[in-house]
């Protein structure tokens, strides 16, 4: 849907007292009714709480959710919490309106909360009170996951159905385990924007094994090789997408990965390699993947950046037509939309996370 931005006055940020946000939102809609009558609809399918820690990520979240609301209407609550900042708490309200045809506009509410110092601890109960009842809640955590202030994080996650992270920012395999623990110990289902980016690679790889005569080859895998595009720095987050890919094949095919990251399949030991390759763009993305079979044949998936596709081929003594998969948009708002379009959390990711964490010990050096 084309997101055309309206010129309604309610789109501007209005500073409001934190104790009367709901009342001010109601006033906002009442005044908008006078401006545009019934050509304007307030809609929400989700409560999305974006947690940020600085003005840059706050703006990033606001822009992304504003655009995402064109496709998935939502109440967005954007929190900027900085314990090191001056002790204060303030809030603003606005609306993101999009034309949907017939002159009608659909508007989503956006609430911004900025908290500093010890006021940060007032954020979780405030957010809790602002959630629309009977709507699912997603908490989008921008940046690396905090390994401290666990009470604060748990309080914020308490009403959440989903925790959205982006593992490209993770600085250690422990972060993957932390996400996994959220899945195990809470009712919040983790989601990862890196996992959404991986969808095109999963789709392209799956297409190789769609022909009935190729399915048996899943038991003949001998080696999985993934090339991760990196900046040259030795940052863990840059290979997480590749790690998730390897973990996905392993989990879905039924390979056994031991605690040291060693992999066994029906034919014995299986080699999983993740290689880093320095590149200028698409840092953290996969640039090539290869699955080799016991009979010497090999399936490969490569990205054709110019044509915006992934091309999958099988070489060796097997004939399968080339398959082409359209690359998906990697814009944050599109990744968020793809995530929110699924009412339920991704059960496959839950299977993959522990496997990827174990694989990280062996291959993510």
């Amino acid at each position: 849907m084309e997101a055309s931005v309206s010129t309604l006055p309610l789109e501007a940020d209005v500073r409001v007292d934190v104790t009367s946000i709901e009342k001010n939102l109601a006033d906002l809609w009442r005044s908008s009714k006078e401006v545009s009558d019934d050509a304007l609809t307030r809609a929400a399918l989700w409560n999305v709480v974006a947690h940020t820690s600085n003005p840059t990520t706050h703006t990033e979240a606001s822009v992304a959710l504003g655009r995402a609301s064109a496709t998935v209407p939502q109440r967005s609550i954007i929190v900027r919490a900085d314990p090191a900042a001056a002790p204060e708490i303030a809030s603003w309200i606005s609306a993101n309106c999009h034309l949907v045809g017939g002159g009608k506009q659909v508007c989503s509410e956006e609430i911004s909360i900025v908290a500093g110092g010890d006021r940060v601890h007032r954020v979780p109960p405030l957010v809790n009170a602002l959630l629309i009842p009977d709507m699912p809640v997603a908490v989008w955590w921008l940046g690396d996951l905090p390994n401290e202030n666990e009470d604060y994080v748990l309080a914020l996650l308490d009403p959440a159905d989903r925790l959205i992270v982006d593992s490209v920012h993770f600085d250690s395999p422990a972060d993957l385990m932390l996400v996994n623990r959220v899945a195990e110990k809470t009712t919040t289902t983790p989601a990862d924007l890196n996992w959404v980016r991986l969808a095109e690679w999963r789709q392209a790889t799956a297409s190789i094994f769609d022909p009935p005569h190729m399915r048996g080859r899943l038991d003949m895998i001998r080696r999985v090789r993934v090339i991760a595009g990196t900046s040259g720095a030795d940052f863990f987050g840059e290979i997480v997408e590749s790690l998730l890919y390897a973990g996905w094949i392993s989990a879905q095919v039924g390979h056994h990965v031991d605690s040291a990251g060693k992999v066994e399949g029906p034919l014995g030991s299986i080699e999983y390699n993740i290689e880093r390759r320095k590149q200028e763009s698409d840092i953290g993305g996969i640039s090539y993947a290869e699955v080799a079979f016991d009979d010497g044949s090999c399936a490969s998936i490569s990205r054709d950046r110019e044509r915006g596709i992934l091309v999958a081929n099988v070489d060796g003594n097997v004939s399968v037509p080339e398959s082409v998969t359209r690359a998906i948009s990697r814009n944050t708002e599109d990744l968020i939309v793809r995530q929110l379009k699924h009412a339920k959390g991704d059960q496959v990711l839950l299977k993959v996370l522990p496997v990827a964490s174990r694989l990280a010990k062996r291959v993510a050096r």
Partner: protein
Amino acid sequence: MSVTAPTQAPAANPLREGLEQERVPDASCLVIFGASGDLTGRKLLPALYSLAHDGLLPTGQTIIGFARPDFTDDAFRMAMREACDKHARTRPVDDAIWENFAKGLFYVQGEFGDHPAYIRLNEKLQECDRTRGTGGRRIYYLAVPPQFFPVISELLGREKMVTDPEHGGPFTRVIIEKPFGHDLQSAKELNKVAVSTFRERQVFRIDHYLGKETVQNLLVLRFANGIFEPFWNRQYIDHVQVTVAESIGVEKRGSYFEGAGITRDIIQNHMLQLVSLIAMEPPVAFEADPVRDEKVKVLRALREFPKGHEQENAVRGQYADGSVLGEKAIAYRKEPNVNPESKVETFAAMKVFVDNWRWADVPFYIRSGKRLPKRVTDISIHFRPAPYPMWRRLRGVQTQPNVLAIRIQPDEGISLKFDSKVPGPSVRTAPVTMEFRYATSFGAEPPEAYERLLLETMLGDSTLFARRDEVETAWAWLDPLLNAWTADPRPPDFYPAGTWGPESAERLIERDGRKWRRP
């Protein structure tokens, strides 16, 4: 007759789990008979391309056009590319996706009754099995007038181009487009032809209405929500209205329409499908036969038109000169290839009863027409009023029955009308609506009906297709009315183009103290 155990299907692809494209069919050869026709260029190829674009076609899926004009593969590809450029949902066409898609696009020239052409077609199919991994799996799409069904079926059978997993072979399926006959007898003859070569479960009768998201949502609305079904019966529902309106006239289809009329063109298939879905009992499972069993029970329960008085609960109309959406519109009788004395109905309205426990004496008012004020398909469920008018002595309180409206097209959605107190010191009420709109809630454009139906055929799921007994039962119910209209020397009631049909249609409902809803 001996039945061989089906061949073992390979296990599902575990890498598909959790992907948006979780169900990808096995690659097959889809042969389109009548590939040079309008349907192929406007609907079928654009739908297939969009499926490829969305990653829903399997690697190696092959499409072979079969028709009379002498095309090469490349010329056919070029023509289909132009068609997709114009009509595909996923426009602009992505060159990289098209290039790969077009590799599986071929053309075989031939007349439908030309035996050697089928030999050439079979050779091409076998070549594709070798080069594209289609494994002998076949889908034949008969995008041709029904008179060609017999010869095509016979020649496919003669060349042994039809196999069945129950006999140890790969699947063969055939897709048939409406009209499924002209009356009960012709429908039976067509069905006989189809099952002489194919088994009933291999036959997929397309009614594109069943591929629409909102039509499928009827079942979800009714059976996935706990709140509606308890009220979905004669105790709470006063009546039901279904409107299928088109603003266009017959356009270039004058000669076809002269032999059909709106009742055969729309009511016998699309509208009775909608009525079935509204009125059916919950199926034991959302699977082909349980769903269709329940739909056919509704059709069997339709109250027969009283013999000798068939026209009592039905009116027919024909558009006269008028204007639609501000444009001048000529009368039906002045349209090209239409008899100037034609009695063919371009509008029909009926009061229909479903004689069963749930719906006894609840009228279903259905109407369909061409050259109506706008294109809209709308179902409305009108509930009975509250049992006791508590505020009857108060001025300003005029309660109205609740209406659940389901908009099938355009601007698909559902709304519920109910009364609410107007804010203020006195008790005054006004009707308000709660609205759900697909565009508002889900943003993305839903797939075209043909995309869904082609994919379901490839997957072998016939839930969204009409079964033989559905088609025949619908004809059996309508035949007496159609015969009565044919025998009636009077012309249909005329209505100016751009209006909601003849006055007799208003009277049909108003004599019951009700009114057509303005959709």
